[in-house]
């Protein structure tokens, strides 16, 4: 009976720890989205998004299903490129460079912008090899033991797995697997980490651990998280973007950015009635 309370207290603490120091304007954006739309063939999943992503901040994307927030997230590391027929209009500027520009290699983008997926997708290899894989494909040579330990420690997993590094990653629990995916992600030393509903398949305790870890990682990394869980967005994020699905004149559904701002303000005094309806649970 104690567990839920413990978690809540834990998270309240982390919220208050982060809430204080956030400037109202994003002064030093890592990413700047300008009028971005993502299309699958002729169908636009999300339209006309303009949005800055602040350095070392946690930005949450919230909104009902089908509002295009995951699609938008996947445009930050060009993962949408892998879907036949997908293309993007507008500019996604990373430190001022359009990552969809003609001379940009998507491989390079993905090294700088890591990703954690909804379902923990550990590789069918050992725990050690999961973490070492990223550096290896990026040309790392020699002994990676120190790096593996550092990344697993950073992902708050080292103490649980240090004696089992050769064991299959499938032997880990869902929460541990997700932390392993985070360790694997930071092993290639990205600047940004994208998280696509990272806790969707986890129990509350495992979720609390991941949330703690996110707050902890935000000191070194810029994090963008897509979540269906508004409490989670409120707990961990510095800024929140609220998206919704709208019908256009032709009756076609597409995603729209409704409101973007500091998480505290967006949740306490939303300016758009749609945001208010959503966060008060009247819609979605």
């Amino acid at each position, binding site marked *: 009976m104690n567990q839920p309370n413990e978690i809540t207290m834990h998270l309240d603490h982390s919220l208050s720890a982060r809430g204080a120091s956030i400037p109202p304007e994003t002064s030093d954006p890592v990413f700047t989205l300008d009028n971005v739309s993502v299309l699958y063939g002729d169908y636009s999943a999300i339209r006309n998004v303009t949005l800055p992503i602040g350095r070392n901040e946690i930005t949450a994307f919230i909104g009902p299903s089908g509002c295009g927030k995951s699609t938008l997230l996947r445009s930050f590391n060009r993962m949408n490129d*892998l879907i*036949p027929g997908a293309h993007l209009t507008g500019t996604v500027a990373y430190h001022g460079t359009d990552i969809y520009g003609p001379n940009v290699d998507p*491989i390079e983008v*993905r090294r700088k912008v*890591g990703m954690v*997926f909804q379902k923990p997708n550990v590789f*069918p290899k050992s725990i050690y090899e999961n973490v070492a894989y*990223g550096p290896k*494909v990026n040309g790392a040579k020699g002994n990676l033991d120190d790096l593996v330990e550092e990344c697993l420690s950073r992902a708050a997993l080292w103490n649980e797995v240090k004696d089992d590094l050769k064991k299959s990653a499938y032997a880990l629990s869902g929460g541990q697997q997700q932390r392993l995916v985070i360790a*694997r992600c930071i092993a290639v030393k990205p600047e940004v980490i994208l998280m696509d509903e990272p806790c969707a398949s986890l129990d509350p305790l495992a979720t609390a651990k991941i949330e703690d870890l996110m707050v902890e990682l935000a000191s070194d990394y810029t994090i963008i998280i897509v979540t269906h869980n508004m409490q989670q967005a409120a707990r961990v994020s510095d800024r929140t973007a609220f998206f919704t699905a709208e019908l256009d004149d032709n009756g076609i559904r597409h995603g729209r950015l409704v409101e973007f701002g500091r998480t505290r303000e967006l949740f306490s005094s939303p300016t758009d009635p749609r945001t208010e309806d959503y966060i008060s649970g009247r819609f979605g």
Partner: protein
Amino acid sequence: MWLLFVSLAIGVFTLVVLLTYVTIKGWPRLDIRLFTNMPSVRDPENAGAQSAITGTLWVISFTALVALPTGVMAALYLEEFARPNSRSQRFIEVNIQNLAAVPSIVYGILGLAVFARALALGQSVITAALTLALLVLPVIIISTREALRAVPRNIRDGSLALGATEWQTAYRQTLPAAIPGIATGTILALSRAIGEAAPLLLLGAVSFITFNPDGVLSDYTTLPIQIFNWTKDSREEFQVLAAATIVVLLLILLAMNFVAIWIRNKTQKRW
């Protein structure tokens, strides 16, 4: 309900009768001489099938050596790199399905024309191996593609999101994850090739041969050919010898299928 059961019973019953019959009939000769002695026309009492056993091993090894890498690479290309659902892709797909259904004797004719005659490889181990490789290639391609397709999309995504190239993702993640499926499919395909007699008859596998192959250009015989040859002979001793050899061939095939099933069960439910 009953009809279904009877249908099943007919199949199983036939197999059991066949196995029992050849085992009983071949029993007197199911001994070490079968493996240590060479075939003989004059001395059926002491004749063995050693040259056929080694010939089979030679031929099937080279078949695997040619068909496995070719088939896996073709499947890898089709599954991971080719543009899906393009016209050329669909055309190739239909063709591979059709090739898998082509009777083996047709491959024999092809092998005779191309490998034996045009490439002047003659009646050799390598001619047989190349022909059988063509025969099993479609099956290997199809089963490898299925194995690759069974690897979840999110494994590929995870690799690509770390900055791996598509090629690195294919050979470091997707291919290793698909190996159990590939192994199963390949073993089943090769066990089909082991049992083949028709194309090899055309290719001039020598049915009476008293030495083991000593190279890829050597003459050879294989178990099905040896069995075929002995069953043609009217002398009772050779009939017994043929039955014994059939048992050996069936045991090899059953063992291969068993290994395939074992690999499949061992690696089930990984995702």
